[in-house]
C-alpha cells in the first residue's frame, strides 16, 4: 500500500483534538443555556442534529450508488464519504437527547393532547412513544449495518495483495448495493416523517421523505467537495483529485440543487393550488412574516443563485467559485432545516445562542470522529479496480 496518502499535520493532530474539546464544551453549554426552555432547546438540538445527519446520510447514498452504478470516475473522491458515513454510530448516541426531549418536541406524546384530538387518536398506532423508539432503533441498525459493511470492505481492500482479491471485494460491494439502496430509501423516508413531519402531526405529505433526501445528497456533495479542497490545500491528494473531479462533483451538486427545487416546488405548488386546509396548514405559518422572507432566501440561495452562477463549466472548475457555492449551499441546507422545523412552533425566526452551541457541539464531535477515522487509513481506496479510470478522468 502506498503510504503517502495518509492524513498528517494539523488536520490529523490538532484539529480533531480541539474539535472534540470545543464540541463537548459547546454541547454542554447548549444544554446549560437552554434548559430553562425545554421546547426551544430541543428544537435547536433537533435542527442541528438533522442538519449534520443529512450530510452523513447523503454520503451513505453516494457510496452505495457508486457501487450500484459501477461508477469509476469517483473512486478517488470516495474515501471521505466512506469515512463520514461511518460516523453514524455517533449519531445514534447523539439521538438520545431527542428521546429525552420527545415530550417537548412532539405533541402526539402528550396523552392529554391525544385524548382531545380525534386525528391523533387515529394516528396513535403509528405515532406513539414505544413504536417511535423501535423505529429509530431499526433506522440506526440499518444505517450502521450499511455504513460498517461498506467502510470495512473498502478499507480492507487497501491491504489486499492481489488484484483478484480486490475485485472480489468490489464485486461483493456491488452485489449488496441494490438491497442497501432499497433499505436506505425506506429508512430515510420514515425517519424524515418521524423526526420532522410528525412535529406537526396533523399534516402529511407523501413527498416529504424525498425532499429531505434531495437536500441531504446535495449537502453531502458540497461537504465532499469542500473537504477535498481543504485536503488539497494541505497538500493531500492535491495532484490526485483534480479539476476534473471537482467538475463532476460540481455537476452533481448542480443536479441535486435542481432536484431539490423540483421536489420543493412540487410539494408547495400542489398544496397551494388545491388549497385544502389540512395541507395548507403547514405552509400558512411559513408564508407570513419573517418565515416568508426565509422562503425567499431559500428560493434565491438554494436555487436561483446556484442555478445561474454554477451553470457554466468554468464555474465548476474554478475552485473559488466552486467552494463559494458549496459553502452557500451548506448554509442554505441549514436554513432549509430551520424552515422545516421551527415555523411549526415559532412565528418569528428563532436562532439563538443555543442553536449556535448545538451546531458547534454536534459539528465538533462529528468532525472529530470523522478526522480520527480519516487519519487512520489511506486517503483514497488504493486497490480499487477502477482506480486507474478515476485517476485518468478527463471531462470534455
Amino acid at each position, binding site marked *: 500500500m502506498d503510504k503517502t496518502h495518509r492524513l498528517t499535520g494539523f488536520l490529523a493532530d490538532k484539529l480533531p483534538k480541539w474539535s472534540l474539546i470545543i464540541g463537548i464544551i459547546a454541547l454542554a453549554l447548549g444544554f446549560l443555556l437552554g434548559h430553562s426552555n425545554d421546547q426551544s432547546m430541543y428544537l435547536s438540538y433537533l435542527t442541528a442534529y438533522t442538519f449534520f445527519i443529512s450530510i452523513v446520510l447523503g454520503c451513505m447514498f453516494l457510496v452505495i450508488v457508486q457501487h450500484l452504478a*459501477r461508477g469509476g*470516475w469517483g473512486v478517488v473522491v470516495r474515501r471521505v464519504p466512506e469515512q463520514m458515513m461511518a460516523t453514524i454510530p455517533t449519531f445514534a448516541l447523539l439521538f438520545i437527547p431527542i428521546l429525552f426531549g420527545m415530550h417537548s418536541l412532539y405533541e402526539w406524546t402528550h396523552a392529554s393532547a391525544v385524548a382531545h384530538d*380525534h*386525528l391523533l387518536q*387515529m*394516528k396513535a398506532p*403509528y405515532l406513539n412513544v414505544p413504536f417511535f423508539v423501535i423505529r429509530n432503533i431499526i433506522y440506526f441498525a440499518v444505517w450502521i449495518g450499511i455504513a460498517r459493511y461498506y467502510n470495512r470492505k473498502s478499507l480492507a481492500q487497501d491491504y489486499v495483495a492481489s488484484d*483478484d482479491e480486490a*475485485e*472480489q471485494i*468490489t*464485486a461483493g460491494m*456491488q*452485489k449488496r448495493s*441494490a438491497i442497501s439502496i*432499497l433499505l436506505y*430509501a*425506506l429508512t430515510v*423516508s420514515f425517519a424524515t*416523517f418521524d423526526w420532522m413531519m410528525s412535529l406537526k402531526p396533523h399534516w*402529511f*405529505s*407523501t*413527498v*416529504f*421523505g*424525498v425532499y429531505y433526501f434531495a437536500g441531504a445528497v446535495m449537502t453531502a456533495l458540497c461537504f465532499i467537495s469542500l473537504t477535498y479542497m481543504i485536503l488539497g490545500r494541505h497538500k493531500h491528494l492535491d495532484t490526485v483529485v483534480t479539476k476534473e473531479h471537482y467538475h463532476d462533483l460540481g*455537476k452533481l451538486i448542480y443536479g441535486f440543487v*435542481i432536484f431539490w427545487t*423540483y*421536489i420543493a416546488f*412540487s*410539494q408547495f*405548488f*400542489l*398544496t397551494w*393550488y*388545491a*388549497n*385544502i386546509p*389540512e*395541507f395548507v396548514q403547514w405552509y400558512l405559518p411559513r408564508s407570513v412574516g419573517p418565515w416568508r422572507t426565509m422562503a425567499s432566501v431559500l428560493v434565491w440561495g438554494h436555487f436561483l443563485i446556484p442555478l445561474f452562477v454554477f451553470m457554466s463549466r468554468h464555474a465548476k472548475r474554478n475552485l473559488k467559485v466552486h467552494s463559494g457555492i458549496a459553502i452557500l449551499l451548506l448554509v442554505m441546507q441549514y436554513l432549509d432545516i430551520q424552515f422545516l422545523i421551527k415555523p411549526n412552533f415559532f412565528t418569528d425566526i428563532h436562532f439563538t445562542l443555543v442553536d449556535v452551541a448545538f451546531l458547534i457541539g454536534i459539528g465538533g464531535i462529528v468532525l472529530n470522529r470523522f478526522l480520527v477515522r480519516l487519519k487512520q487509513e489511506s486517503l483514497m481506496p488504493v486497490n480499487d*479496480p477502477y482506480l486507474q479510470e478515476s485517476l485518468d478522468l478527463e471531462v470534455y
Partner: protein
Amino acid sequence: MNTTVDLEVKRRPLVTGNQTFESISDIVCKPVEATPPKWWHIALLGSITLLALLMSMIGYLVWEGIGVWGLNNPVGWGWAIVNFVFWVGIGHAGTLISAILFLFRQKWRTSINRFAEAMTVFAVICALVFPGIHVGRIWMAYFMFPIPNSMAMWPNFRSALLWDVFAVGTYFTVSLLFWYVGLLPDLATLRDRAKTKTKKIVYGLFALGWRGSSRQWHHYEKAYMILAAIATPLVLSVHSIVSFDFATSQLPGWHTTIFPPYFVAGAVFSGFAMVLTLLLIARQIFNMKELVTMRHLENMCKFILATGMMVGYAYAMEFFMAWYSGNPYEQFAFTNRAFGNYAWAYWIMVSCNVLSPQFFWFKRFRNNIKLMWVISIFVNIGMWFERFVITVTSLSRDFLPSSWGYYSPTFVDVCTFIGSFGLFFTLFLLFLKFLPMVAISEVKGVMPEANPHHKEAH
C-alpha cells in the same frame, strides 16, 4: 481468466465479435439498403389496417360526439386520458437514454439511443391524438393554443391541461430535434453508400451537407451536448405536468404531493419496458446481437427494476399517507382501490409493475431473453392499468354515494386504443426501413479503435 471473481467488476466491451468500423456500417445499413423482407410488408399492412381503424373511430367520434365513449356522470375522464398518459410515458425512455444517460457518460446508450428516440417521437404523436380528440368539438382544438382571437378569448392559463399543451409540445419539438441532430452523420453515411440517384439526393438533402470534417464534428458535439442539457429537464417536466392534471385537483387519490416524481419514475419505467419489448425482437431479426449485447439488455433490466421499485415506493407512500392522514375520504379512496369495484385493475397493476420486475434481481433472469420479453409486456400492461386505476377509481366513487358510478369502455374506446398502436407501428416500421436504427457514428465512437492511441504499443 479467473472465474472465482464475478466478471461484472471488469468492464465488458460494448461491441462484441471482432467488429470493424466497416462491418458496423454494414450491419446497421443493411435493413435500410436491402429490399424489405416479406414480414415487413405484412407487418406494415397490419399496422396500416389498425391505423385505418383509428382514423375511422376518430371520424365516428367527431361525427357523433363524445357520447360514443363510455364516459358517464362521475367518470368524466376515461380511456382517452389513460391512453394519453400511457403513450406519453412510453415516450420517456428515448430522451432519458439520449439526454440523461449522455450527461452521465453512460456509453452503453449508443447502441439503443436511436431506437429509443424514434419510439419517443412516435409515442408522443400517439399521445397527442387523445387530448386532441377529447375536446369534443375538434374544430375548436386551436383554442388550446394562446392565439388571441376576435372575441378576446384566451385559454385558461391556470389550468394544468393547458400546461400540458406547452409541456408536451415542447417535449415533442426538442425530442424531434435531438433525434434529427443525432441522425445527421448517419444520414450522410447512407448518402455516401447510396446506389441510386434518388436515395443520394434525398439522404443528402437531410444530411445538411455533412462532410465529417473535424470542424463539423467539433460544432456537432457542442450542439449535441447543449441539446442534451436542454432535454434533461424536459424528461422531468413533461410527466410532472401530466401528473399536475390529476394532482392539482382536490380529489382523494389524485391530490398527493409525490405525484410529479412518481409519474416521472413510472414514465421511465414504461418507456424502458417498451424499448425492451421492441429491441429484443429487432436485435434478433436484424442480427444485431453484437451491437446490442447482453450487457445492454442487462442494464435495461436493471433500469426497469430500479424504476419499478421507485413506482412501488410511491404506491407504498400513498397508502401509508392515506392511512396516516386520518382523513376518511383519503382512506376510502385507497381501500376502494385495493378492495373496491376496480380491485381487479388494481391488482393487475401491482402484480405487473411491482411483482413482475422482481425477477430482475437475479442475473439468471436478466440473461433470459424470453423471460425479459414477457416481463416487459407485463410492465407495459401494468403501466396502462396504473393510469386506469388512478383515473377511474377516484372518479367513480364521488364524495356522495348518490353520485357513484361504474365506468366501462365502449367498443369505440377499445378500438381507438388498439388503433393507436397502428399509428405507432406504422411510423416505427417506416423508421426501420428508411433510417438507421442504431447510431452508427456513436457506436463507432465507443469502440476501442476510436481511441487515437489504439494501435500504439502499450
